[in-house]
């Protein structure tokens, strides 16, 4: 079972290492991991696809959330989210086959973004299964090289994985408290 998890993380050195190290150590299986900027400066968004049973997905969320540099974590389901991936495929295209290939590309609503005398570079943004299908259809012509970004996802509708909205949802499970050192003069405030 594949699970898509979105994590908002502090944009700091070492964050990717922390996340990768966590997955390695706990034996979680990453299908894909995509990292990029968000609407907020200093915050990056990781979209992680994990393969495993339900309890593993649950542990992935909780263990990720436990990392101090991870601000918020949310599971995104296929039904409630827009999930996309981008692929670039360099396919061999002999002049006599080029028309056939272009037909396939058109059916998938993919684009040709580079042409040489013997190859085409095809670009497609779609759900992972569509990318798989395109790949299979192009394979007989000879795929020279290919790259996929890994999934990225956003919740459908007005709902967001924003930092503050998530905290509201989380606070339903427990009440926050502030801590204080038994000695010393540092007031600890947890917002």
């Amino acid at each position, binding site marked *: 079972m594949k699970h898509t998890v979105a994590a908002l993380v502090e944009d700091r050195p070492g964050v990717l290492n922390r996340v990768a190290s966590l997955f390695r150590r706990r034996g979680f299986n990453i299908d894909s991991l995509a990292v990029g900027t968000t609407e907020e400066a200093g915050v990056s968004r990781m979209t992680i696809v994990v393969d495993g049973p339900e309890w593993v997905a649950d542990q992935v969320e909780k263990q990720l959330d436990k990392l101090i540099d991870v601000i918020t974590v949310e599971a995104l389901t296929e039904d409630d989210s827009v999930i996309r991936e981008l692929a670039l495929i360099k396919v061999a295209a002999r002049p006599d086959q080029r028309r056939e290939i272009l037909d396939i590309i058109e059916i998938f609503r993919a684009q040709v973004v580079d042409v040489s005398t013997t190859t085409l570079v095809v670009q497609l943004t779609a759900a992972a299964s569509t990318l798989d299908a395109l790949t299979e259809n192009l394979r007989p012509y000879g795929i020279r090289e290919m790259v996929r970004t890994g999934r990225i996802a956003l919740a459908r509708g007005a709902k967001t994985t924003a930092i503050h909205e998530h905290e509201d949802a989380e606070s339903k499970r*427990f009440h926050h408290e502030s801590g204080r*050192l038994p000695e010393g003069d540092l007031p600890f405030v947890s917002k």
Partner: protein
Amino acid sequence: MTKMTGADIVLTCLERLGVDTVFGYPGGVVLPLYDKFPAHPKVRHILVRHEQGAGHAADGYARASGRLGVALATSGPGATNLVTAITNAHMDSVPTLFITGNVSRNLLGRDGFQEADITGITMPIVKHNYLVMRAEDLAPAFAEAAYLAMTGRKGSVHIDIPKDVFLEEAEFIWPEEVSVRGYRIPGEASVSDVQRAAAIINNAERPIIFAGHGILLGDATEELRAFAEHGGIPILNTLLGLGSIPPEHVLSYGMMGMHGSYWANHAASNADVIIGLGMRMDDRALGRFQDMNPTAQIVHVDIDPAEHGKNLPTAVPVIGNVKHVLKQLTHAIDKKAHVQWLRWINEIRDGHRASMSVPPGGELTTQYVVSKIAEFAGREAIFTTGVGQHQMWAAQFMNIGRPRQFITSGGLGTMGFEVPAAMGAAVACPDRQVWTICGDGGFQMTFQEIATMVDEQIPVKMAIMNNGFLGMVRQWQELFYANNYVSVAMSQPDFVKLADAYGIKGIRVTDQSQVEGAIREAAAYNGPVILDFQVQAEGNVWPMVPAGAALSETIEAPEGVIR
């Protein structure tokens, strides 16, 4: 605003955090920091003999006092020598701060002399770590690090500082408050979680409490007692939960787990509702997970949501600080006595006390020695242990009944923890007598800290249970590897002569009749003492849940072992 050097900032931060002791070892890149120690006399530096000793001492200091334990090391080998101690503290959620120096910023990543990627190394074994690249970032990092170490689920935190950051000048600005947006500290549990938990507990006929280290870390012993008494619920302790309820309490049924009592393990296996409190459902406490009382409903109270459902399916996970949650639950549950259930456990206990008793007869056994030490030193003393047979016997027979009385390496199981941890505990609690129960194997891993104790006048009593074997490994070879002893017998130095070499008192005990006198003599001596108890060579720890077996398969004698 006046500027100060990074080194002064670090020490000022420690002062502001109320840190009175740093266990450390100097080296090239931390020289600028050591240069400033004399200007900060409120922070006592204790020079250890090995960085691992510094780390375990900080750990023992924190466990004994509840305050932040701090260890300091130089770059490269100094830092990597801390790794075992950092992991040990982290596994047992002990609030500790580890500070390391590193090579100057322009040399980072160039594999220069004594460079190690220590933040890369410690990443999976700390709650959080920092590589501080600017002097102005030091104060916020220290404030945040202490905040993380001391709040929520406590743990170890590591700060790495390049040499030239110690020398760089910056303004010292102590943060007014610390707030980390990716970090939330659970306090009270939600009303709905408490209600769901209470409903299950109220319907239980055979409820049982597993009380763990969280009760001690969360200072919740009073709340635990009130909750158990109100609900008439028997209490079992994990190894690290010992001390959360005195053993003489009518609802206290002692330690569960691999070397827990027969009755505790059977009570755990026959309960219909399990209430886990501040414990992480560890395999040494629960045995084979899939056969850990699969029909019981589990209510699991923990401050760390990631512990819920990690090892066992949980009916009601409750996120919260166990101290608050126990108050909430005590209000929410019905007053009950569970007379039949307690009688059932009592009957099993009456029939199986023999396997949890000091062996009769005149032989000098570890069980006898540790029970005599406990009897003499009493509940106000602090006991630390290493790992292995002596640790289990200490857990079984030292009558632990006070929080922070028993200091032992639970999660990581670190041999050699005992001596430096005792040193740290004695520094934290100078008014308490500190005894360390050592194995002859573990003692030889870290006894270099005796020199530290001599220098700093730390009067730890070191009782070595000397059986000439790595006892627990030998026990397993005897029981599960057909008596095939491989690399478990070891020769020992003359421990009394060793004491002499350090200029401290050494006492050898070879017979039961000498035990009490030796304990008195050691306690009366003003300084560290080594007691060499030459105990029974091939005793086994019973009861036992063989590795991979269920708690219900607890055996009490070698005949029970199925090879």
